[in-house]
């Protein structure tokens, strides 16, 4: 599921810093590397993981690529729980509204 990838991606502290930088605004690899004690290739690698996790998007701009946060990635676990509770509460309602004679039913 998508949410697993997102949280695994953010478990790495350096990758979180890269993600943090992008929260300040869209940036190129070079701009991010300037703000962190991390090489450009390492930043590129972190961005690749973040992109695969659905946390960032990129687009070409001249010779560089500009990275920005993809708001859908972080919301994945929330969306999953949202659907999950819809399902669970529906089955709860169905059980609660069953005729009382089935109370002690224990299949």
């Amino acid at each position, binding site marked *: 599921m998508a*949410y*697993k990838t*997102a*949280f*695994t991606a*953010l*478990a*790495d*502290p350096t990758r*979180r*810093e890269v993600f*943090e930088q992008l*929260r300040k605004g869209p940036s190129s690899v070079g701009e991010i590397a300037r703000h962190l004690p991390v090489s450009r290739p390492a930043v590129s690698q972190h961005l690749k993981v973040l992109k695969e996790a659905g946390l960032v998007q990129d687009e070409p701009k001249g010779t560089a690529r500009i990275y920005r*946060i993809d*708001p*859908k990635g*972080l*919301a994945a*676990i*929330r*969306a999953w*729980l*949202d659907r*999950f*509770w*819809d*399902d*669970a*509460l*529906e*089955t*709860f*309602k*169905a*059980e*609660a*509204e069953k005729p009382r004679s089935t*109370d002690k*039913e*224990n299949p």
Partner: protein
Amino acid sequence: MSEQPKIKVAPVRKSIEVRVPQARAFDVFTAGFGRWWPKTHHVAAVDMKDAVIEPRVGGRWYEVGEDGSQCEWGRVLAWEPPAHLRLSWHLNGKFQYDNDVESEVDIYFIAENANVTRVELEHRIMAPDAEALRAGVDSSGGWSVLLESFAKEAAA
């Protein structure tokens, strides 16, 4: 500050109306937990046979596998029949039990009238992955606050 970095998302909130009295709704939710919890949603590797909420503060809630093994999900934090139940759900990003992860579910049973109960649920996820906690020494103050508003916006 000993506070650890936490990734927060906006709470999940649900409301559903059930056509039974408040006490009955609470009883089915808790004592009847294993009868309604979707059997597709479980944590352990073995198939789920039953699920249990122990009826007291500090009690466990857990699933029972087909082989009789138990797999704990969390603890009962508030037990106030027939109005309120609070559970901690130690669930990490890999859908595994983890004691470091804070996630809480509040369930309120509100009597609309003698025969109708509104069930309101709020699930707060404070640390979705234990790895994020263990790895965490970077503590930028605005992280969780900003991420929360960001997630809210994303989910809107």
